[in-house]
């Protein structure tokens, strides 16, 4: 009997359950897609430490997301309860027990939840393939339809069941202890005069100042030379920053609400005053929610800039670590088949030019001193410079070469800087600052000497001991090729005795790392955004349900439909966009903080950072606008029905 009633209630309350259904469906789909990736074969094959490190981290991430989703679902079920308080109160007065009502509500939400679960898994099947495709595109890999791992499905079902039980327990707790009179009364919450109006502007100013102070001090701490000794200080700054982030939006909302009401009501036009009061009530009553959502959106806004900066830094690192597209070296292997290597490489990419050369490690005699020098023959070095597009001037003597990384820190890649004569040891004609790691293969080389070919034997004989390394460098015509396969083939050529390093392969390996990071960040972002929008929609519809009698009064007083609709839109727009506005406001000091931190590295310009933030904001705005439009339409339909259904004075 109760089950039949539950099914009928779900059918009749379809509009109430709509937002709940959409939210659960989408979150299940996201979780399913994420877990299919996490437990699938593709990631396992891409990353060597996947099973030991990466997978546990991603599973932990999905568990955290599950906790966030449970919070939102608890909120969604509370929304459903709020809308039907009177109905449940009526059931109690008609003689149903609380147990009956609990069973009825459990049945209704379980039916909806199971429908959402089924729809979410169906959607997740497609979303997983889409995500896999996007991921492979991101790492320049080849997409192949991925299989669905049993582990992923089981973990999703387990997680979703836990989420449902947790969210449901909250609702049951409410229904179990609520008084009949409170249920029958519904929501009778009126506006109240603010008691300490100056408190909120003061708190807003104080939290803004505290947050800025924490940012500035944190940047100062990172920049200081003894930062490692003052970790406790940094912890305090972070704690202060987090507290400010939480309190600032709440105080700003209360402050804004109070300011909105200060205008003389006699000067109001149309429904202006009503709109202001409703906005004030929404902002004031939901300041904590807006604060939490602002933090979520702030993370979503700051995240891409941090991500892009890290990716740029890593790609630059790949460039810095290897000057040539392909390098190889071996100290003992005498029969290095570099010609065969070039022929093999040709199968994967166009080889523009290559050079096999010798690099000499020279050491003073043990009893004579501790000198160490690396040298290269002039002809070899001239060829290496030519590979990098630089024409070495005529020397006629020794040339001191220095790695730009050791001279300038992180320099612009690919630049040479020649300085002739002056202040050098006897026999040297000049110094040349070279692109980073020009002759380094495996171990970093700070400086080396270029010796004219004719004087090489004399020069080497002046050292106590000399070790020659058979090195190789090549430049390719194209940038993108199957570098991972090429690297494997080249290394197999010598049975892994000679290790070939392909810059493109290093880039792809870095991309895989970032791809995993990107995957996790994307999910965090998507879930944050989706849940934020859903919470705003649910909260809005709850508030509109309470506002319906007010709109009826306004209609009777002669307020036009267009004016009421406009007023509703403004209220909802402010409510939806307030968290984004606060997030944008908080993004300013945070962006400045990150920019100050990475200014020396010049990872991005200020314009780029603002541009990225603007693009993300536009995307957030678009998603929120979509939810806003849907909420407006549902809310207005609700209000119109309410007005029409009670067309009496």
């Amino acid at each position: 009997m109760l089950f039949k009633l539950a099914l009928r209630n779900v059918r009749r309350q379809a509009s109430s359950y709509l937002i709940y259904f959409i939210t659960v469906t989408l979150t299940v789909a996201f979780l399913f897609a994420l877990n299919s990736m996490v437990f699938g074969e593709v990631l396992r094959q891409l990353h060597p430490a996947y099973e030991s490190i990466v997978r546990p981290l991603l599973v932990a991430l999905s568990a955290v997301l599950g906790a966030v989703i449970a919070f939102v679902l608890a909120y969604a079920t509370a929304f459903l309860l709020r809308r039907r308080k009177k109905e449940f109160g009526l059931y109690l007065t008609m003689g149903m027990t609380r147990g009956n009502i609990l069973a009825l509500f459990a049945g209704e939400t379980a039916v909806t939840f199971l429908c959402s679960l089924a729809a979410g898994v169906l959607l997740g099947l497609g979303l997983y393939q889409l995500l896999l495709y996007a991921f492979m595109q991101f790492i320049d890999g080849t997409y192949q339809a991925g299989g669905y791992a049993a582990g992923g499905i089981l973990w999703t079902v387990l997680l979703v069941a836990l989420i449902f039980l947790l969210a449901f327990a909250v609702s049951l707790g409410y229904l179990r202890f609520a008084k009949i009179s409170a249920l029958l009364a519904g929501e009778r919450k009126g506006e109240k005069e603010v008691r300490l109006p100056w408190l909120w502007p003061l708190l807003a100013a104080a939290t803004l100042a505290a947050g800025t102070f924490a940012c500035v001090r944190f940047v100062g701490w990172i920049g200081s030379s003894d930062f490692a000794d003052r970790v406790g200080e940094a912890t305090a700054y972070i704690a202060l920053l987090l507290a400010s982030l939480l309190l600032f939006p709440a105080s700003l909302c209360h402050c804004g609400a109070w300011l909105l009401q200060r205008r003389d009501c006699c000067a109001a036009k149309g429904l202006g005053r009503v709109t202001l009061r409703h906005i004030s009530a929404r902002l004031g009553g939901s300041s904590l929610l807006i604060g939490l959502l602002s933090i979520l959106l702030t993370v979503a806004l700051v995240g891409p800039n941090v991500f892009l900066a890290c990716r740029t830094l890593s790609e630059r690192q790949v460039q810095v670590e290897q000057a040539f597209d392909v390098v190889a070296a071996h100290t003992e292997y005498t029969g290095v088949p570099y010609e065969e290597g070039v022929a093999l490489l040709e199968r994967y990419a166009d080889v523009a030019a290559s050079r096999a050369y010798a690099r000499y490690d020279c050491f003073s005699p043990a009893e004579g001193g501790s000198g160490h020098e690396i040298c290269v023959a002039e002809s070899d070095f001239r060829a290496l410079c030519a590979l990098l597009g630089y024409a070495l001037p005529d020397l006629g003597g020794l040339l001191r070469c220095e790695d730009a990384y050791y001279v300038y820190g992180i320099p612009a890649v690919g630049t040479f800087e020649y300085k002739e004569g002056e202040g050098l040891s006897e026999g040297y004609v000049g110094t040349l600052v070279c692109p980073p790691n020009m002759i380094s293969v495996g171990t970093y080389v700070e400086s080396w000497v270029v010796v004219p070919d004719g004087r090489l034997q004399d020069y080497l004989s002046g050292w106590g001991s000399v070790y020659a390394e058979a090195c190789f460098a090549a430049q390719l015509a194209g940038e993108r090729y199957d570098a991972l396969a090429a690297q494997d083939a080249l290394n197999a050529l010598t049975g892994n005795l000679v290790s070939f390093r392909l810059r493109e392969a290093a880039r792809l390996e870095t991309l895989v790392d970032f791809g995993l990071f990107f995957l996790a960040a994307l999910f965090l972002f998507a879930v944050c955004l989706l849940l934020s929008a859903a919470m705003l929609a649910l909260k809005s519809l709850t508030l509109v349900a309470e506002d319906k009698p007010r709109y009826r009064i306004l209609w009777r007083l002669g307020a036009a439909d267009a004016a009421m609709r406009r007023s509703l839109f403004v209220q909802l727009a402010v409510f939806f966009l307030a968290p984004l506005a606060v997030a944008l406001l908080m993004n300013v000091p945070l962006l400045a903080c990150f920019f100050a931190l990475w200014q020396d590295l010049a990872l991005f310009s200020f314009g780029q950072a603002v541009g990225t933030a603007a693009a993300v904001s536009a995307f957030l705005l678009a998603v929120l606008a979509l939810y806003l439009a849907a909420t407006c339409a549902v809310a207005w339909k609700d209000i119109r029905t309410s007005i029409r259904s009670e067309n009496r004075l």
Partner: protein
Amino acid sequence: MQEILRVERAVKYFGSGSAVTRALAGVSFSVEKGEFVAVMGASGSGKSTLLNVIAAIEPLSGGDVAVEGVSLAHMREKEQARYRRDRLGFIFQEYNLLDTLTARENIVLPLNLRRAGREYTRSALERVSGALGVGALLDKFPYELSGGERQRVACARAVITSPALILADEPTGALDSKNSRALMQLFCRMNAQLGATILMVTHDAAVASYAWRALFLQDGKLFSQLYRGERDRADFQNEILSTVAATGGGCDAL
């Protein structure tokens, strides 16, 4: 005197097919400017329907209603909203104050809807709050007011635009007898001092006795009407009770 309201052979049906209910069956009457008229009748006699069609909340099935010579027939929805806003004032049984607004904001709301200027609104507020004695209540929210105070605020809201006609639907329905008397005295003041024209629906013969004229509806028809004339209120109330008894009861015997 100037005619404010004219109701001519007003007919209203609800439902369709075989389940048609006739709520008004050709009601005709008029109200002059400055009149205070009570409408009485048993439950289902058509009182509320009459008020709804005058307020353009329910469309008429036949006949016509005109306020200040403007017919409601064929009025579009937007025009109906403007008509309610510009020509009518409302006083409801449940006060219908917006709980999110202060008393001051509730009172000036109809002027806000008309987009009246600041100075005009302020002076109208002073005039009305002075006349109806709600000055001390202006900064309070509805939940801080008693039932009688809320109804006084609702009266102030109804008269602030100096509407052509004030429609009151069981205004004392939620009040005790002391507050009901005070409210009726307030209605008389609104009528006498502010020149308000009032059409009030009530079950209560004592409340109706404050009016100049009482209309009696039965089965959707105008059954009778009484004028108070020079009589005192007690006599008028007795006559109302007698008329009600003749219609078969249906009002609160007080």
